[in-house]
């Protein structure tokens, strides 16, 4: 059987000479790269290379000391995370940031918040707009639950779930926002082989079914090389490599700085 190759679009996200420092500590120095629509870009690098900080800059948790982020052609200086969200940027976290007190369903539902418009009064009465909205969005959420194959834990409080499933739920919450750009911070950290395989499958499916552009941080070289179209390598807050998996594999500087030491 033949499978049609998917094509990358124009530039979706562009970061220019981003530098970020906490007090005296330099987290990022003068980082630039771009992400094309529908692309899967992996950011790799040793611990403390500033990978997470990079994501935090992209969705506005941190504000770079200098440099700029251009998203969908709009260059921006300051942006709050929720603004980033409304622009279609969603993310997951290195150490799971689910809402422990809520069920899987509610957690994913929160991902729909931006899409819900019902007024306060109709919520008080849970009537009309509010109720219809709840149902309409429940449907969407159920589709995601179905997509991630977590039907059996739908109503379980997330606190009770094993680690791997929590990661899945968190991905679900991000997907619920129907993002155009999805930032995944070590989606497979601490997973066993088959969990990793599942997760990789989901990441590919997301990218494929919904055409979502994905920027992910990952330590497992195997995974990175399989999943990503392009790889950006950071080391001590500096970019030391940027290219296709193969190019990266053969990039001497990268090998010294990272692959060499880690494997």
């Amino acid at each position, binding site marked *: 059987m033949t499978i049609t190759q998917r094509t990358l679009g124009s530039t979706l996200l562009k970061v220019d000479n981003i530098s970020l420092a906490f007090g005296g500590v330099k987290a990022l120095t003068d980082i630039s790269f771009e992400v094309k629509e529908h692309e899967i870009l992996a950011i790799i690098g040793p611990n403390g290379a500033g990978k997470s900080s990079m994501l935090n800059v992209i969705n506005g948790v941190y504000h770079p000391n200098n440099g700029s982020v251009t998203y969908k052609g709009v260059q921006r200086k300051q942006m709050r*995370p*929720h603004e980033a969200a409304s622009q279609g940027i*969603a993310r997951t976290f290195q150490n799971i940031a689910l809402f422990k007190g809520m069920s899987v369903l509610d957690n994913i539902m*929160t991902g729909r918040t931006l899409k819900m418009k019902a007024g306060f009064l109709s919520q008080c009465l849970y009537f009309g707009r509010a109720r219809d909205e709840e*149902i309409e969005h429940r449907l969407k959420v159920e589709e995601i639950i179905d997509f991630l194959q977590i039907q059996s834990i739908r109503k379980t409080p997330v606190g009770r779930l094993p680690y791997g499933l929590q990661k899945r739920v968190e991905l679900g919450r991000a997907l619920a926002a129907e993002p155009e750009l999805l930032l995944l911070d070590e989606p497979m950290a601490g997973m066993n082989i088959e969990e990793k395989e599942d997760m990789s499958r989901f990441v590919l499916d997301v990218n494929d079914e919904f055409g979502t552009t994905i920027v992910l941080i990952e330590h497992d070289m195997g995974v990175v090389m399989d999943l990503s179209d392009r790889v950006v390598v950071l080391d001590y807050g500096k970019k030391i490599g940027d290219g296709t998996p193969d190019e990266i594999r053969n990039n001497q500087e990268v090998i010294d700085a990272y692959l060499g030491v880690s494997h």
Partner: protein
Amino acid sequence: MFYREAGQFKTSYQSDQAVFPIFQDRIFVALWLLAAFVAVPLLANEYMFRAIFIPVIIMSLAAIGLNLLVGYCGQVSLGTGAFMAVGAYAAYNFMIRADLNPLICFLLGGLCATGVGVVFGIPSLRIKGFYLAVATLALQFFTDWSFSRIDWFTNYTPSGSIAVQPVEVWGFVFDSPLRKYLLCLTVLVIFTVIAKNIVRGRIGRSWMATRDMDVAAEIIGIRPVYAKLSAFAVSSFFIGVAGALWAYVHLGSWEPLAFDINVSFSVLFMVIIGGLGSIVGGMLGAAFITLLPLFLNQLPLWLGFNMSTAMVSHLEFMIFGALIIFFLAVEPLGLARLWQLAKEKLRLWPFPH
């Protein structure tokens, strides 16, 4: 054990998202309402209404209100007394100056509380946890002072204390304990439904998200400003109305200290003991905290030795303190959680899990 859920399947999201999806629960709630609206009025005597039911109901309302803020949105407030005071005094002033329908005045009282709540909620955008708690204390002291020192609020009554006529709506006078009881009960039921609707919807989720992990919440697009301020607003509205009822229906006459910091604390205790983040919890807590002193007062008599009232009140303090610590350590989710666990057990019976 008595939950027989087999065969209760849902064919629509509406029925699946119902407040009481389980048939047996619906029965149970119906029975409660029946008891509250029919059995109690038939059986209870004056004392019970005055000393037990009315205060418990009004405090439930306040506790539910505070729980929305503390339990659902995770913003600790020690200013409950203040909000109640605002509600009470505002209602009073609307009544004597605008001469509106008392019920309207109660709601307006609530709205004033809302206003104050939002203003004093603003710090919550910058500060968290106990910093915020302290900030709300500021409100507490400020209102204490205002209502005792600014005579306009008290309509220049020399003593500074206020006495009011029984509530009269469209010629119907709520003077007998029974009528007062029914009035409060109705209000409580309505507000409970509203509270439940809010917390099960978008707003409620954004509150809980903010509570559980505010950074993540903001990153998925929940604006902290809205989440926190709306929580403050709704919460203080509930509490304000409760305050108005407390003053008008329960006390009838009161001086500024009726709403001092101890009220704030005891409502907070109701929420903690009752169960953070649970509507039922508010009611359970209110009942518990209100009834415990009565019980403690009776206990010595039953045991056949008498104890000075001072001693009793000291014991009360100790027991409250101990209970708070106990619940926080053993069951942070309070009575409501215990109830919920029991229910789980019954549903799975005879299986343990």
